[in-house]
């Protein structure tokens, strides 16, 4: 059973590699600009914040939770950057404060989930509204765009020594991906997340501090999303209340597309990284073909549906086969098929 599971996981990531190759082929086919450093840098910019926020989301979904408030935390952080800076605070102080606020926002999610005992789905739908609402209160209809060039340059210039291909946001993402990847796959703390997601009760009996760990994960998610909000603000050199609205869909999509099970207990950082590349490449290729940008939701939504339907479909087929096989062995039915826990 375990080996079968590993094999299906490997298949998923191999599939992603093929998908990535197909996307690159499509991109090259649709525009000769696709592989230019200018375009790749643009692609970097469009995916950076989503990629960064996908990392803590991966860990949360692996433990069986979800954080739908990520884009609102990004928006709230962006609004705060604008507001605090326009009040004359120095930029390092602004950044520090915003990261702390992000941590508090994430902690609050985790507190409601782990200490009050509410489902994370309901909690984060609520805080999605609440945090975005705070962004609206903080900035109202105002736009702040007079940030110092030293900082906004981080958003629009490539990382040095990368040939103009990589943005700062993707550079940060790569560092964080390594940190999250090593934690998730190579430390006992990270491995314990899979146990929590697969069977929370068993994890508790095995002495894993489930609630404490989840609380930390939600807090980390808040900090990382605040960081994404700061980068987002610098990239656009603008703070408005609806910055990053709706990005939670893209974040959830890349995580599930990466082969992370929505039911928890399964997933890899490598898969998510590949999914991010597929997603960014597809979005960029479509952009080059003059696809209506505001309708990108059709593509993202369809990808999300496919990424949850395909693994379910194979499980469905497997269930059916198992059933037929068992029927064949015992003509009179025997025990009923075991229901899969949902």
């Amino acid at each position, binding site marked *: 059973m375990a080996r079968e599971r590993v094999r299906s996981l490997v298949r998923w990531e191999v599939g992603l590699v093929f998908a990535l190759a197909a996307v690159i082929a499509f991109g090259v086919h649709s525009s000769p600009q696709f592989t230019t450093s200018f375009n790749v840098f643009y692609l970097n910019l469009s995916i950076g914040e989503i990629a960064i926020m996908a990392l803590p989301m991966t860990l949360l979904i692996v433990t069986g939770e*979800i954080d739908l408030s990520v884009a609102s935390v990004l928006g709230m952080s962006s609004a705060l950057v604008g507001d605090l800076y326009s009040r004359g605070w120095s930029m390092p102080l602004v950044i520090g404060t915003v990261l702390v606020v992000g941590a508090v926002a994430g902690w609050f999610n985790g507190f*409601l989930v782990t200490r*009050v*005992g*509410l*489902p994370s*789905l*309901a*909690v984060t*739908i*609520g*805080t*999605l*509204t*609440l*945090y*975005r*609402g*705070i962004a*609206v*209160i903080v900035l*109202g*209809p105002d736009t702040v765009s007079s940030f110092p060039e030293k900082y906004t340059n981080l958003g629009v210039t490539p990382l040095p020594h990368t040939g103009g291909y990589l943005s700062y946001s993707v550079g940060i993402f790569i560092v964080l991906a390594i940190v999250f990847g090593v934690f998730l796959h190579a430390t006992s703390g990270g491995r314990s997340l899979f146990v929590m997601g697969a069977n929370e009760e068993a994890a508790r009996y095995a002495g894993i501090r489930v609630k404490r760990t989840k609380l930390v994960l939600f807090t980390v998610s808040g900090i990382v999303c605040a960081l994404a909000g700061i980068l987002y603000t610098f990239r656009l050199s603008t703070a408005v209340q609806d910055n990053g609205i*709706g990005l939670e*869909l893209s974040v*959830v*999509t890349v995580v*599930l597309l990466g082969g992370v099970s*929505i*039911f928890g207990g399964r997933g890899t950082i490598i898969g998510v990284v590949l999914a991010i590349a597929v997603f960014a490449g597809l979005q960029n290729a479509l952009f080059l073909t003059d696809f*209506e940008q*505001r*309708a*990108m*939701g*059709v*593509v*993202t*939504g*369809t990808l*999300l*549906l496919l990424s*949850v*339907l395909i693994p*379910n*479909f194979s499980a*469905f087929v497997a269930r059916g086969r198992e059933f037929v096989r068992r029927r064949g062995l015992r003509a009179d039915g025997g025990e009923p098929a075991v*229901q899969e826990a*949902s």
Partner: protein
Amino acid sequence: MTTVGATTTPLGDVTNARRLVDLVFRAREFGIVVVLAILVFATASIESRFLDLSNVQFILVDTTIFALLALGQTMVVLTRNVDLSIGSVLGLSAFLSADLFGHHQGIPIALVFLAGLGIGAGCGLANGFLTVVGRVPSLVVTLAMLYIIRGIDVLVVGGGQVVASSLPNSFIEIPKKTVVGIPVLAIVVAGVVALGAYYLRSFRSGRELYAIGSNPDAARLAGIPSGRRVFTAFLVSGAIAGIAGVLYAAKYGTIDSTAGSGYELQVIAAVVVGGVAIFGGSGSVVGAALGALLLNTILSALYVLGVSPFWNQAIAGALLLGAIALDRGISLWLAAALRKRRTHLGA
């Protein structure tokens, strides 16, 4: 607590427990009415304009769309699912149905409502099918559908919009009609909500929605056709969102590709504030409609009191969180109370 009445038979025990549960949930709805009354009284005492006929009419008409959406959402949430796509469905239906007037001069209004219903039912069908047959959590399905339907809306509408001048007067007048000062629309919607409440309370298939939400596995083992019921709930929710879209078109007249964005969150807030458990299995349509009325009254009160509308979203979010936490508290207390009673009787 040494005497527990004369009926200590097992049957009496069950009846007693049920009475306690009933009482708590009726108290939950009654609580909303009390909060509503206090809110209206307090706001009116500060600013008497609040109770002007026109303002009350405005709140009622505003509530009708949300109360309708809350009805559909309640049916879905009762089965331990959620429908996040209703705002997009409403937007698509609002544009397509209103656009009919421009393309077909003199088209009967009933036909336009039927078109809205059809569009909504189509979307609901897709949601239900993917959730039930695809065995994918409804949250993911409807989140994806939220963006897919909105994207289709953007592609269909393009940069254009429907403007009020292209709509017939008899259509735009629908939300403005009143009987003895009460908007006709509010009366009709109240009737629809009452029908929905009757269905969920007294029909077998309505009760089964509660059973599915309380314990999906037990419901299946008890022979309830869970898949079909959940599918129907999504179908109804979509169809209602479609009709709400037509009403939206009649009310606002101007429809672009952003119509109804974010409505799903307000409706979920209304439903949960109205006492429908987000975990499924308990709550009522009347409560959900009262929740919608309360939410709209709060927003109107804030407006009348001169609080910036920029606070609306944060307040809706805070109310949603508060209501979920409150329900969690109530259910914990109720479980403890029932357990205590049972052990007491058993001793």
